[in-house]
């Protein structure tokens, strides 16, 4: 497809009209319909995906503190050796990530190094799309977790099979068959205008009005969203009302998002995947202050999240995975920042994780035009999560075969 028309194609596809004509997904569903045998408990598991928006600089996150080259190309922004929270002789956490380091020491954190994909794209927009659709070599209008939701045969009448804790639905949760609500916060997720019963009854009938004197590619989509908004906003507060967080979360946007995620994951809504976002990591200028703050917020919010989950007995059924559209340039720029790069590490966190270091250590002497060369394809990590956590065959969802990693028990 002509790239110029891609955005438009996406818009059309999202409207729900193009979807019926997509034979590819019917084929995919037929192939992927059987759950993997021998994965007990998969029905009860939750995946939380955290998008580190903007391109997290991997080298100042998991720091190669023994590499002199790291210090020579980053004269002003390198993390001093003495500050690094050491993991082994070669790498360690950024000092802002004390809480996550403590979880790592308890074996609850897996770090996959140098993750990326072949022929990397350096645009935020396209690379984010690539990570979300799991399609570096073509354009997909569904996200990889959207395809999982389509594939998993979940109850059609459940409005919360997947939940995006965001104002706007991210591409990763765009599905053909399942509509995923985007809920920024529960407070405010409710209709204030139809207090009386007469208005409410009429509202329901009016929003389902499809016999209109015009046709629009978005009409069906509007009707569906209005219907879900009304039902979902009535149900959600009731469904999660019984859950009380076990402790305080940091007063940050990510802290609030993960608090809601714990509430949803712990309230028997049948939710399989949750999406939250954090950022922006796009640190072209004065990187240190911004990235340190964001990494500290990530680390503290994750620690509070797992304390809360553990207190409710959910820490072993909730897996959290981070991703970012790319790492950053190895050499710092003139603005004490870094430009768009390639490979970078990601984290898998939870009671079900085999903690430790996976993948390949970044080699600053063997770069890809000044960037960390990727060694582990991100689709291998996705395949691992699909097969070993969510219990689905990954081939149809990822449209290809990718080796899994031994991260999940």
């Amino acid at each position, binding site marked *: 497809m*002509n*790239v*110029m*028309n891609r*955005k*438009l*194609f996406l*818009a*059309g596809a*999202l409207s729900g*009209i193009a979807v019926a*004509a997509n034979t590819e997904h019917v084929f995919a569903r037929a192939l992927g319909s059987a759950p993997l045998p021998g994965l007990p408990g998969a029905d009860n598991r939750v995946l939380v995906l955290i998008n580190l*928006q903007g391109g997290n600089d991997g080298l100042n996150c998991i720091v190669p503190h023994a590499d002199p080259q790291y210090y020579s190309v980053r004269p002003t922004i390198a993390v001093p050796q003495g500050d690094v929270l050491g993991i082994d002789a070669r790498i360690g956490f950024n000092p802002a990530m004390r809480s996550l380091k403590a979880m790592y020491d308890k074996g609850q954190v897996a770090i996959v190094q140098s993750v990326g994909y072949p022929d990397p794209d*350096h645009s*935020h*927009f*396209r690379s984010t799309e690539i990570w979300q659709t799991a399609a570096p070599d073509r354009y997909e209008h569904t996200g990889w977790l959207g395809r999982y939701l389509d594939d998993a045969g979940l109850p059609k009448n459940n409005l919360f099979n997947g939940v*995006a804790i965001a*104002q*706007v639905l991210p591409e990763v949760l765009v599905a053909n068959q399942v509509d995923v*609500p*985007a*809920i920024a916060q529960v407070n*405010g*997720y409710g*209709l*204030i*205008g*139809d207090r*009386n019963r*007469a*208005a409410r009854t*009429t*509202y329901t*009938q*009016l*929003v389902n*009005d*499809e*016999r209109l*004197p*015009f*046709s*629009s*590619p*978005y*009409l069906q*989509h*509007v*009707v569906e*969203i209005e219907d879900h908004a009304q039902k*979902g906003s009535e149900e959600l507060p009731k469904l999660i009302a019984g859950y009380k967080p076990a402790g305080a979360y940091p007063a940050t946007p990510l802290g609030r998002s993960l608090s809601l995620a714990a509430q949803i994951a712990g309230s028997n809504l049948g939710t399989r995947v949750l999406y939250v976002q954090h950022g*922006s990591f796009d640190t*072209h*200028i004065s990187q240190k202050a911004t990235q340190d703050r964001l990494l500290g917020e990530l680390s503290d919010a994750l620690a509070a999240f797992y304390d809360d989950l553990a207190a409710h007995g959910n820490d072993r059924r909730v897996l959290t995975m981070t991703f970012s559209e790319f790492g950053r340039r190895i050499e710092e*720029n*003139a*603005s004490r920042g870094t*430009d*768009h790069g390639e490979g970078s590490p990601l984290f898998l966190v939870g009671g079900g994780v085999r903690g430790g270091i996976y993948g390949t250590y970044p080699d600053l002497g063997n770069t890809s035009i000044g960037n960390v060369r990727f060694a582990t394809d991100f689709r291998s990590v996705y395949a691992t999560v699909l097969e070993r956590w969510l219990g689905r065959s990954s081939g149809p969802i990822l449209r290809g075969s990718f080796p899994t990693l031994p991260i999940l028990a």
Partner: protein
Amino acid sequence: MATALVPNTDVAGMARPAGELDVRRALAPYAGPWNGRLAAHLLRRAGFGGTPSEIASLAAMPVHQAVDQLLNLPAADAIAPAGSLYSLSAAIAQLFPNGRPKDVDDMERRRIFEQIRMGERDSIISVQNWWLNRMLATPAPLQEKMTLFFHGHFTSAAIQKGVDPQMIFAQNQLFREYALGNLRDLTWQVSIDPAMLIYLDNATNVAKHPNENYARELMELFTLGVDHYTENDVRESARAWSGWIVNRRTGAAQFVPGRHDDGTKTFLGQTGNWTGQDIVSIIYRQPACAMFWANTLLNFFVYNDPEPALVSSLANAIRAHDFELRPIMSMLLRSNVFFSQRAYRALVKSPVEFTIGTYKALELTEVGLQGQRALTQMGQVLFYPPNVAGWPGGANWLTTQTMIARANFVASIVNSPAMTDASWLQSVPMRSQEAARVLVERMLLGDASGSALAQLSAYLDGSNTSALGVLSPENFQERLRGGIYLTMAMPAYQLG
């Protein structure tokens, strides 16, 4: 894909029959029936909807005169926002001793910067409010619509990286000035606009350490689209753009020859000692550039996923007019394809269109903080696009959360004190069937089914419930407000 759903007859008798696009006629002037429904369509696309009298006034003149009237814009430089615009450099100079943040201790520095942040925030809120009210009240809505279009296209965000309210307003005025100007000239002007230089880091792009951020987005998002350049073109373009800074003291853009890489660059196959201005010229000589703009304009003003033949046809016209927008918009807004069935209600209203359109339909004359807060919930805050790609639009506007925000905004506005003064509300006949028709005509230009009308009518006279009691003059006004809420909850009202 959508054509299969187009019915064979259309109540407004719009030009294009269902089925294939006739590309030879698509951009030719529309000469079919003309009425309020189509005038409202024109106002939704070229503006932010219309009050009943604005719609009636356009419907009363021939279609071409209506389009000409919309194309008639006042000079942009005569327009200034109420209140003063906060300048970061001025605040630093004023609040720090000797204007030097370094001279004070950490605590004091933090306190002053917090004070500056609050000042900036208040200033931005007042500029947002000024712009929203201008959209509502302007006699030239297309000028503001183009400004909004460019704001989402050549994205810069406020209060990030030092983009202060004064800069973001200057950029906004630049868009207003070029509303129907030349796209190549605007691209150059926006490239050296202080807010843009800071937002996409070209102000720190220096020969020794080129910063590629702007060079990349200029091609990917602003002029060509991906796949029309290589990574090497990005790097070479960044070299050509090196040397621009924003003067911290004056807030003005400035070219510093000592920071510029004046070596030879090879960009999009052409070799020379290129500067930023050369880069813009070379980009605009690429066939992909006219295609890109044709596609972008069709998506924003006509419908999503336009046929490739239509894109090519408009791209040819764009080239023929050397990227001058006035003749292009003049052609597009009066074309057969613009008034076709496929275009009608074929776009999702953006939150700004939804909000301003609602004020207009209700004949409310001022956008207050209520409307501004609602825009945050609906997902569109002026001067704060989500990222450099702007607002994705289309189906992305509609999630359960943003749909709830739309309904709640309407609920709060119909119950606001301003509605009590809306005189049209007093003159709605207290007969439920007629009242339902009045509401559907005013809010939806009749775009509701017979059964929806019947439901609305039943709600208004209380016959579908005992909860409302017998219809009386006392409770009729209250029911009308409920009726407005319900009419604006109908699916058609979400579509532009």
